[in-house]
C-alpha cells in the first residue's frame, strides 16, 4: 500500500473571472503513476483547471496541494522552485524560446538543475528524436518548425523536467495520427516511470488511458 500523498490535490477550488465562476468549486486528487483526463467542451475551464494545478494561476477559493504541501498562497518564485525538475507543463501556445536554438529551448528546465551544456543537448536531442523531430533540426530556431513539430518540441521540454508530473493542455491537438501516437506513447512512458499525467484532451487514446476522468461543463450549464 502506498501512503504517499497525492501528487496534486484540489480541495473545493474555485476560479472566477469578472465575478463569474470559470471553474469549480471542484475537488480532485491525482496520484502518482496515474492519468487524469479533463474532459469537456471548449470554454468549460479545462485550461484554467490545469493552470490552477500547475500553480500558474491562484484560486479564488479552496486549496491546492502538491504532494501534500499547501501551495495555494505560495509566491511565484516558491512555485517555480517546487516545479523545478519535477513538474513539466505544456500550454496551448507552446511558448517556445524563439530566439534560442531548439535544443536549448527544449532543455531550458535543465539549466537550473545545473546540468552541463553537453548533457543538456544530448538529452534534448534524444527526446526530440523520440517525438519524430530529427537531430538536424536541433540547432534550428523554433520558427522554422511546423505547428505539429513546435507542439512536440513543447512536449519534449515538459517531459525533460517532469519527474513527478506532466500537465498538458490538448497535447495532440496539432498532430496527425502517427505523431499523436508518438506523443501519447511518450506521455504514457513517463507515467509508467512514476509520474502523474493531467491532460485536457479530446483524444480518445488519452481518454482510454485515463484512470480518472473529470468532466467539466460550461459554467453557464453548471448547476
Amino acid at each position, binding site marked *: 500500500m502506498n501512503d504517499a500523498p497525492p501528487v496534486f490535490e484540489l480541495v473545493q477550488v474555485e476560479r472566477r473571472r469578472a465575478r463569474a465562476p470559470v471553474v469549480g468549486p471542484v475537488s480532485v486528487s491525482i496520484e502518482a503513476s496515474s492519468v487524469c483526463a479533463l474532459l469537456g467542451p471548449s470554454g468549460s475551464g479545462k*485550461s484554467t483547471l*490545469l*493552470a490552477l494545478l*500547475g*500553480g*500558474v*494561476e491562484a484560486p479564488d477559493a479552496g486549496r491546492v496541494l502538491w504532494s501534500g504541501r499547501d501551495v495555494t498562497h505560495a509566491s*511565484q*518564485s516558491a*512555485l*517555480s*522552485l517546487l*516545479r*523545478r*525538475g519535477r513538474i*513539466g*507543463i505544456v*500550454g*496551448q*501556445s507552446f*511558448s*517556445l*524560446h*524563439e*530566439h*534560442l536554438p531548439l535544443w*536549448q529551448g527544449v532543455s*531550458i*528546465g*535543465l*539549466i*537550473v*538543475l*545545473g*546540468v*552541463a*551544456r553537453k548533457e*543538456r543537448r544530448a538529452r534534448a536531442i534524444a527526446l526530440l528524436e523520440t517525438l519524430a523531430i530529427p537531430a538536424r533540426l536541433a540547432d534550428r530556431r523554433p520558427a522554422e518548425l511546423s505547428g505539429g513539430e513546435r507542439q512536440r518540441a513543447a512536449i519534449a*521540454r515538459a517531459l525533460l*523536467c517532469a519527474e513527478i508530473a506532466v500537465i498538458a*493542455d490538448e497535447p495532440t491537438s496539432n498532430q496527425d495520427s502517427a505523431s499523436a501516437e508518438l506523443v501519447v506513447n511518450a506521455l504514457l512512458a513517463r507515467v509508467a516511470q512514476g509520474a502523474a499525467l493531467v491532460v485536457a484532451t479530446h483524444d480518445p487514446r488519452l481518454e482510454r488511458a485515463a484512470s480518472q476522468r473529470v468532466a467539466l461543463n460550461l459554467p453557464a450549464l453548471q448547476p
Partner: protein
Amino acid sequence: MSGKLTALASLALDNVVAHALGYAASCAGLLLTLALWIAGTAVAEGLRAEGLRAADAGADIVVSLRALGRHAPIDASIAEQLRAINGVERVEGRVSGVVDVNGTPLLIIGVEPQRLASASELERGAAPKVSGECLVGAEIAHELGLYPGAHLALEGGAMTRVVSISGVLRADDALAGSKTLIMDLAESQTLFGDTRLTQMCLWTRAGYADAVARAVERMDGRLVATTRETTRAAIEHAANRRSGGLSALLAPLLALATVSFATLSWFAHARRASEIAAYKLFGFSGGDTLFVTVIENALVALALGTTAFLGAWIFVRGFDAPLLAAWLIPDLDLFPTQRIPAAFTPLPLGLGLALALCTTLAGSILATWRLSLASTTKAFA
C-alpha cells in the same frame, strides 16, 4: 551550484547573441558618447604625457623678461651673471619668433649650435653640421613639402634668409615641435635683426632649481624664472582642465544616452516577458531570472566598453580625431592631418568599461525588475 551559475551565465550569453540587434539599437547613444569620452581622455592623457616629456627634456629653469606687462628680449650679457649663481651648471640662450611662410605661421627657435648638432630625434635626414642648416617639424615639413636638402626662404623682421633643411623631426616629437623650425642661434638673431635673446635656459645641480630661480628673480625684478616643476604643474593643470571640461561636456550627453538606453530597454524587455515567463514555468526562480538579466547587462557593458574603446582608437589613430582634437588642442584644424598625441592606456579602457557597466546596469534596473516579475500565465495562455 557553480554548474547552475555557469549554465545561467551561458544562457545569458546566448540571449545577448540572440538579442544582439536589440541591444545594439539600445546602446547606440551610449556607444557614441563613451567612444567620444574615451577618445577625449586618451588625447588629453597623450597631451599630458607629451608635455611632461618635453618639460623633462628641456632646461631646469627657463628665464624670461617681462617689461611693461609684456615679454621683452633679454640682453645676452646677462648670461655671465646667471652662470655666477651658485648651483648653475650651464646657461644657453634661445630665440623664438614667428615668420609667415606662404600663409603658414612657422615658429622659429634659435638654439646654441652644439645643441642643434646633437639632435637625434629625427625622422629623416641628419643634424645640421654647418650654419644655415636647420631642422623642421614633421607637420610643417608635410604642409610645406620640405625634405632634407630642400631650401626655404624665411622673411624675418630685418631680412630674408635662405636656409637649408638638413633633417625632419620625428612625427612623435612634441606637438608644439611639429610646426617648428629649429636653427642656429646666431642665424635666428640675424633673421629677426636683434642680437638679444628671448629666453635663457638654465641647467642646475640636483636640488638647486628652486634656490637658483629665487636668486634669478632677486637679481632683477623683471626676470621671471620658471622651473621644470612649475612647468610640469602647469601642464598637469591644463591636462586636468581639458579632461574635466570634456567630462563636463559629455556628462549630460551620457545621462541622455542612459535615459534613452533605459527607455529602449523597457520596450525591448516588454517583448521578452513571455520568454522570462517560460523560464519561470520551468523552475527559474526570481533570483535566477534576475541573475540572467544582470549577467546579460554585464556582457552588454563589456561589449559596449570594448567597442567604444576600439571605436575611439580608430577615431584617433585612423582619422586624427576630427572636431574633438580641435576642441582639446588650440589652433588645430577641425580636420587635422597630423598625428594627434593620445595615450590609450588601461586607464581609459578600465574607466570606459566601468562607465559602461554603471550606465547599462543603472539604465536597465526598471526593465530588469519588470522582467523578474513576469507572470507565468504569459507562458501558459
